[in-house]
């Protein structure tokens, strides 16, 4: 996947975001989060690695995104205060 130049600030925010989201997820969803959002693997690759169907991976990535968005919203509202 393409690499973009990332600022230190984004990296710190990204790490905080991942860490908080991972703590709220079941392990399969957490694994899907890391493999998809951090390692950049596609659904098919993750399915093969975790011995799951692509549909199951898609559902878990969806759960991972829901967790990430909840944390992101909490961080944004905290930053706004």
């Amino acid at each position, binding site marked *: 996947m393409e690499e973009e130049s990332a600022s230190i600030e984004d990296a*710190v925010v990204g790490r905080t975001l991942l860490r908080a989201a991972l703590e709220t997820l079941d392990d399969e969803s957490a694994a899907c989060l*890391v493999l998809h959002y951090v390692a*950049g693997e596609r659904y098919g690759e993750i399915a093969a690695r975790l011995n799951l169907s692509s549909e199951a991976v898609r559902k878990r990535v969806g759960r991972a*995104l829901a967790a990430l968005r909840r944390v992101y919203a909490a961080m944004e509202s905290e930053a706004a205060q």
Partner: protein
Amino acid sequence: MNKHPEILTAQAPHLSDEQLAAWVVDELSGDERSAAQRHLAGCAACRGALAETQRIGTLARAARSMADRVSGADISVVQRVLAQLNDEKPTTPSSEPVRGELAVPAYGVAPTANRRRDVWRRVGALAAVLLLIAMSALLFTRLSGRGPAVTSTSTSTFTPGSDPLANIPGNWSQVLPERGGISDVAVVSPTDIWAVGGIGTPNNSGSQDIVLLHFDGKLWHRSPESFPGASLSSISMVSANEGWASGAIGVGQPFLLHYINGHWRDARTSLTLPTTSGLKYLTLDKIQMASATSGWMLASPVVNQTGVSPTDIYEYHKSGDEYRWEPILSFDGVNFTALAAVSNHEVWFVGSRGPHALAIRLTVGYLNNDPQSYVINRDAREFDMDALGLSSISMRSPTDGWAAGGDDVNGGVLFHWDGQKWTPRPVAQAEIDGVVMTAENTGWVYNRVYNQGAGYLYATADNQWLSYPLASDETVVTGAAITPTTFLAIVDSFKDPHNVVPVPRVYTMGQGTPLPTPPPYVAP
């Protein structure tokens, strides 16, 4: 024509997180993708969620780029973390309280310890390392030398300082989209500034989408709202919490946005279209609010393809929860170019009828003198001005106003209104496109020359004139006063006429080069 896609697709469910996640990496099936595309076109909320999803992806990759840098540097940390993973992870219940400072509800049911061990074995070493590095707070906090912050929504490396004005050029170029042009700016305060415009198509045949940028005193941010085919030409903020922006969408159709509760919303349903038969096009060129309950717009209708296009005046009226924009006046053969609201009761328009410049004052009376009640009378008075045309007006009060314009043969004109009459004043060199007065006899005038340089920016204070340096191919596109002594100019270079690259600059009264009074006229 589908003018209000929001309404037509309102029944369609919003995109789920699963669909949003799949959309950004193109993992949706063809049918699902086209359904999602249709929904996104009409749903600002889902477009916002999509922008957030993309932003989260960027942040996660940023964390990874940091992990990449670290892993090579400190293998022993990685090994220790891996060992920790194997020992600890299976016995750590996922429903344990969040250790960080963020209270986030736990999600899902904790699987059994055996199942966990199995999952992490399947994940493999690569992702496990990335995961643990991502979670290793101490490591990264030490590396970056600062705690987490979430104020930035761009990948800019610009570090804002404490002076908002000095931050204005800041991260602008990272936020402005390619081929993004700016038409208008609105300053609420030095830490609350909006800029609007449109994204040109590669062949300059129209607009791809709106440009809506906000400056918060530190950084510029691009608003996530997307309206394909739309462009914004004017913006007027009532307060930090409310404002309006107008423009066009598609082929000459009206476009209107309302900012309220922190979001820009499609406000086209508040618009009453004129009933003129044969009306084909109507664009909303200029908007100015006097308050949250009163405002006016200049609209350009085209009755038929051969017809002369006059300008219609739209009036905004809000009473309780009810609000509407209605066409109130259309002057035969008058082409209005600018407007300036003085109060709920008074607004001025300038323009021309044929080769004669004119200014029109509209006064509005309300039942019981209450602007939230009914309009009981309107009175329009016309003033002929000795000029070919006027292009800008700035009203400070009912007894202190300025109108400016001119033409490229005779040069600029500038008139002052004292409450009784308009009087010509010494004037800047070429025609004036914008006048922005900030105090008595004090303000800014600028000139933009379309598709070439040679624009200028002058400040005037008590008949003294100052000039501010612009490169020979630069021109001021638009501008607004930030404080009584500072001016935000959007400056564009016309080195490449097919690729506008507007930039914001801040000019300070008193720092310019003095000019003779009146400034000499130099033919462009």
